[in-house]
Structures are given as structure tokens and as C-alpha cells.
């Protein structure tokens, strides 16, 4: 039973032959309907309910996208942002999980550092742009760092909550068997915190993109942030939305991928 449908008669769907694949394709139909409806409304509203200067229109955005794809602009810039984000995401997520394991291992450490980590987390990173630029330059580094930082905190706090929520009984069971700290981390705490880690990853990945794009907007000559900034500088709303749209598609696809990975990992449910 993969369903969480509180109201549906439990399970039955789950047992039908091909139940899952039908379910999946049905979801895609709904998604398509939703997207088409939204775009249609947008197209209608543009010029009628609102000035296209502000909201552009799906057709204009699509035209811009085609143009960019033809010229190779989109692929080029998207790939750069993608690389930066993935690098940052991997670093930030790894560091986040590890740091949470360390901090979660001792209540004293956790409670000591908690306000400081929160404080740094709550800093508006834009305000530190000059520091970022000075330390990391204007190449890929500051984008990767900002993506990593954005991902780190979300993964860290989520994982930390997960580590704290671990069922003591399982930990105790392994401790009486003589398991050391590391094994308990590996065999109990990490798997038990998995739903939390995944929530952190799913929260973090899009923010990694946001971080990389924000850094690109700060200083760059390539990437989605650059495209956006460039378009914004020329008050080219269609260009801004086209760049953001490409970003959204990538983010959603990657998060869908994370969801699949999660489902596979949680096959024991």
C-alpha cells in the first residue's frame, strides 16, 4: 500500500493488477490538466486582466525559449547552473548529514551549537555578497558555495530532527549487543532518519538552485541567474520568465527523481 489516502477504503487499489501503473499515468494526466489549465488562464489574462509587461504570456515565453534553444543559449546557461548546483548540493547534503550525525550524537553539543547554527542559517546571504565575492571570486566557486550553504542548513536541521526522533528502543537494542557509536549511526540512526534526510534533500535541492542563481545574479557572465538578471536589466519579462521556467522544469524533474529514489529506499514499508 503506497497510498496515504485517509478516506479511501484502505488498500484495495494497491492490490489490483497493474494498479500502480494506472495510478501513475492517471497522476500524469492530472498534472497535465493542471498545467494546461494554468497556462491557458495565464495566456488569457495576459493583455486582458494584466499588462504583459508584468506577467508576459506563455506564448511569448515559449517563443523566447525556442529562440534560446535554437541559439544554444538555454542549454549552455542551464548546464552551468546545473553543474554548480549539483556540486553544491552534493557537498552541502553530505556535510549536512554528517554534521547532523555528529551534533545529534550528543545532546550537549547539539544544544550548545544550536543557536549559533540557527543564527548563521538565518543570515540573509545576499547581505554577505561582497564577502562571498571577495573570498570565492566571480567564477563558479561562489555559486557552488552558496548552493552548498543553502542545501547544508536545510539538510542539517532536517537530519538533526530525524536523529533526535530515532526510537530509543532500537538504539538500546543495538547497544546491548555491543554496537559502538559508529555502527549505531550506520545501522539505526541513519536508516531511521531517512525520511527526514529525504525531506531535507527535497527542501534543499530547489534552494541549492536558488542559491546558485542568486550568486549568479550577484556576479557572473553565464548561468540562469545571468540570463534572468540580463533580461530583468532590460525589463524583458518574457526573458525572465523563460529563464525561470527552464529552472523550474529542472528543479521539478530532479525532485521527482529524488522522490523515486526515496520510494525505492523505503520499499520495506
Amino acid at each position: 500500500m503506497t497510498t496515504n489516502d485517509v478516506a479511501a477504503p484502505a488498500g484495495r487499489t494497491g492490490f489490483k493488477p497493474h494498479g500502480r501503473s494506472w495510478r501513475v499515468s492517471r497522476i500524469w494526466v492530472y498534472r497535465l490538466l493542471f498545467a494546461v489549465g494554468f497556462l491557458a488562464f495565464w495566456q488569457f489574462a495576459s493583455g486582458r486582466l494584466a499588462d504583459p509587461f508584468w506577467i508576459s504570456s506563455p506564448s511569448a515565453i515559449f517563443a523566447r525559449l525556442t529562440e534560446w534553444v535554437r541559439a544554444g543559449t538555454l542549454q549552455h546557461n542551464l548546464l552551468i547552473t546545473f553543474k554548480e548546483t549539483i556540486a553544491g548540493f552534493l557537498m552541502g547534503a553530505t556535510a549536512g548529514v554528517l554534521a547532523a550525525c555528529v551534533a545529534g550524537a550528543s545532546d550537549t553539543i547539539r544544544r550548545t551549537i544550536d543557536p549559533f547554527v540557527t543564527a548563521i542559517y538565518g543570515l540573509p546571504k545576499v547581505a554577505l555578497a561582497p564577502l562571498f565575492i571577495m573570498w570565492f571570486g566571480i567564477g563558479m566557486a561562489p555559486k557552488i558555495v552558496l548552493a552548498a550553504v543553502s542545501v547544508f542548513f536545510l539538510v542539517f536541521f532536517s537530519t538533526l530532527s530525524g536523529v533526535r526522533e530515532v526510537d530509543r528502543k532500537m538504539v538500546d537494542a543495538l547497544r546491548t549487543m555491543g554496537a559502538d557509536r559508529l555502527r549505531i549511526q550506520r545501522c539505526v540512526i541513519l536508516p531511521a532518519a531517512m525520511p527526514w534526510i529525504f525531506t531535507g534533500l527535497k527542501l534543499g535541492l530547489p534552494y541549492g538552485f536558488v542559491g546558485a542563481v542568486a550568486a549568479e545574479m550577484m556576479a557572473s557572465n553565464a548561468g540562469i541567474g545571468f540570463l534572468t538578471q540580463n533580461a530583468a536589466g532590460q525589463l524583458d519579462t518574457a526573458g525572465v520568465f523563460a529563464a525561470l521556467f527552464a529552472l523550474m522544469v529542472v528543479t521539478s524533474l530532479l525532485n521527482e527523481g529524488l522522490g523515486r529514489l526515496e520510494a525505492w529506499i523505503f520499499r520495506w514499508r
Partner: protein
Amino acid sequence: QAPKAVPLTIGIGGYTFAYLPLLAAKATNILLEEGLDVSLVNTGSGTNTLAAMLGGSIEVSGLVMSDVILAAAKGQKIQAFAPLMSQYASDAIISVSAAKKVGIEPGMPLKERMARMKGLVLAVSGRGSGIDKLWRYMLALGGLDPDRDVTLTVVKLDQMYSALKSGQIDGFNTTAPANNRAVDEGLAVWVARPSQGEVPGLENFLYTALCARPGYTADKADVAGKLTRGLARASQMLQDNPKEVGRLMQKEFFGQTDLQLIESAVVDQRKTAAVPPTLSQQQFDQNLEFMVRFGHDVKGVTYRDVIDPRLLSA
């Protein structure tokens, strides 16, 4: 020619006409002809450009002179070695409806216009920023007290046009093309045009310049020389053939903006480019005085600290 071109990254605070000669030099391929393969990086603000320079990720940048002086006052060593704009290229506009409301008309003298600005909401990019100082300076000409007679509200530079268009502010002053655009589209009217030299005390004002760390002109005399030469040529070309430069700039930097607009903006602003290129003591003093007037603690900064005129005298 291309294989010989030296790559060079130059930081700027935005694709605006504050760096007009630089944009022109790049768009017209003059720099390439000089043997420089220049790429521009938009850092969004002077602070960020400074940070990039002091962090070592770029060697040359376009900066507003007052930022350079301020940085020098705080112990940072940066020198201007080639002028970009020698007019205060920040023109003030207010929306058409605001103009109607307060009764400002094109023919009025500047003082009269300023005197009528009472009660308007005007955008600045930050307290103490160049835009803020310019408003205060000009409003004072009209006998207004900027702190009581108008509302100066902080709006990020690149949001000023949007804020005006959506009616959140009555006016702003900034470099082209955002203000030219608002005027061309009939959204706004000019209220003060320092770029045209109409503001007393701000004529021939050294506004922006190319900067580097001290010694750059000695160490990289070759590159710096080519740059300076290229800029001088581009400035000249701006005077001679502004429409052509405008066309090339539109192609290079403003692909989504109306060609007409860019061309007319270039024509309009061409006089701000430094022709002939000078970085004189007098220009420096004027800058310093303007800053001191608004309470900046920059008294200790000398001409030698922030200006390296050796390429120009050569």
C-alpha cells in the same frame, strides 16, 4: 588578430550607460582591434565590484569615482587610470502624473522645477548613495529640505523603473537607459539632467572611471594602455557616429530592448563620455567637495591616492 588578443575580465555594476564608453568600446570591437578580448561581469553594485577586485578575481573594473574615494578613505588602495564619464550621468525623472500634479513643465528653469517637487516620493538606491546625494543637491537648489519636503525611499537600482511604472514612486534619478526609456514611453518627464550639464556645480564632473590596484599601469602597462586607447577611440566614435554605436550596443547588450530607444539614448548621452580623457586634480577636488558636503569623512584622501593619470599624460 584574434589569437593575439589578451583576455581580460572587467567588472561593472550593471549594464547601464554609467559605463557608456566601455560598453561602446566592447560593442564596436574597438577593444578587440586593440588586441584585448574583454568580457564584462555584472556584479550588481560598486561594493561587489570592489570586493571582486580586492579579492583578486578581477584586475580592472568600472567604478563610480565616489566609491573609489570612499574606499580609499577606508584604507583600500584603488586607483582610477582612465576616465569613462565626465558628466554626472544620472538624470532625474518624475512620472507624468506627478508632473501634472505639481505643475512641472519642460520649459521651466531647473530651480523652479526643483522648487515644485514638494511632496513627491523619490527613489534612492540607499541613504548616502550617489543618487541620494544628487537628489539632495538638486532639491537644495530649489530651496527644498530633502528630509521634510519629499520622501526619499530606498529602492534597488534595477527596480526603480518597475516601481515608477506601477505607481509606487513618483520619480528617480539613474543612468540611462532606464530613465530614457520611461521618458520615451511617455511614462515620465525629465526634471533635471546633470548629464547635459544643466546642473550648476556638476559640470564636467568625473563620474565613472576604469580602476585597478596601484601599480597596475606600470605592471601591465601594455594592457592598460590598450584599454585607455580603446576607450578614447570609443568615446570619440560616440561623438562622431552615435547611431552606429547605439546599433552595435543594442546588438551586443540590449537585444531585448527597442533599437530606437538605445540609439536615441546614446545620442542623448554621448556628451557624457570623457572627450578628451582627463583625470584632473580639479575633477578630483570637485568629487571630494561633493562628498564632504554630504558628510562623508574623506578629507584625508589625496589626488595621488586614487588617481593614476600617467597613461593619460603619456
